[in-house]
């Protein structure tokens, strides 16, 4: 998945109404009328949201002229999740090394001055 498509997908989901629409489409396809019902906005506004989601590749509209139900492109959502999962795994890998380090560290370190602390010229060497 190209980075610019990912950006579009994430940006498309930056809006709470669009996130809600996507959440509802995970249950099943729906028409624009059905999708618009719970919101106090015009059909036009909902159609605009759907266009943004469509441009991001997150939803598609069937060619069925009668109802034109909106369909969630689950693969794109899945890709976004997979992409995050890889990042998560890298962090987890780092933190597993930190686990090992923490297990080795003594509980009470001998208090040492930070290496960058300015030295007091009066101090005995």
């Amino acid at each position, binding site marked *: 998945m190209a980075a610019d498509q990912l950006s579009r997908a994430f940006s498309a989901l930056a809006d709470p109404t669009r996130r809600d629409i996507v959440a509802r489409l995970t249950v099943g396809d729906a028409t624009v009328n059905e999708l618009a019902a719970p919101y106090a906005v015009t059909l036009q506004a909902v159609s605009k949201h759907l266009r943004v989601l469509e441009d991001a590749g997150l939803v598609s509209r069937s060619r069925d002229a009668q109802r034109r139900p909106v369909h969630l492109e689950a693969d794109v959502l899945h890709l976004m999740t997979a992409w995050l999962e890889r990042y998560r795994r890298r962090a987890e890998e780092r933190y597993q090394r930190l686990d090992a380090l923490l297990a080795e*560290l003594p*509980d009470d370190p001998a208090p040492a001055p930070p290496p960058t602390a300015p030295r007091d010229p009066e101090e005995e060497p």
Partner: protein
Amino acid sequence: MSTTTSHRETSIEADAAVPLVRIVREFDAPPAKVFRAHTDPELLVRWLGPRDLTMTVEHYDCRTGGSYRYLHTRDGEEYGFHGSFHEVRPDSLIVQTFTFEGWPDGVALERLVLEDLGDGRTRLTATSLVDSFESRDAFLASGMESGVRQGYERLDDVLAEGA
């Protein structure tokens, strides 16, 4: 959008409203120890740097008003990182900036919070906030390749060394 496994494993969330990534992880160590592993450069290089890179700390003054710079080197290629420590509170908070020198105009505001869970355990929450969704996505996508390549190899090494 987030992927979460067990409570003990790293959980990650890419906020949809602001360009932010949030990571949560718990450790079997008290906050003072986890804090030390984040502030003592000698300890930091033992877990922070990617496996196939050498991490060299130029300076790491982890105090309020301090700054840091470190380098990752691989096959003669150098990648520099630097930033400032905006607020450092022992055992509980580090707020810092983070810039990859290959992209000097980009800066992330990072916040590390350590919570004492009692029984010698700590919850770490790390958030990175950048100035645009494009930056956030680039930041997330960076190093993905190496992450895949390395897989869990490093963990094997750590376990083999015997902590």
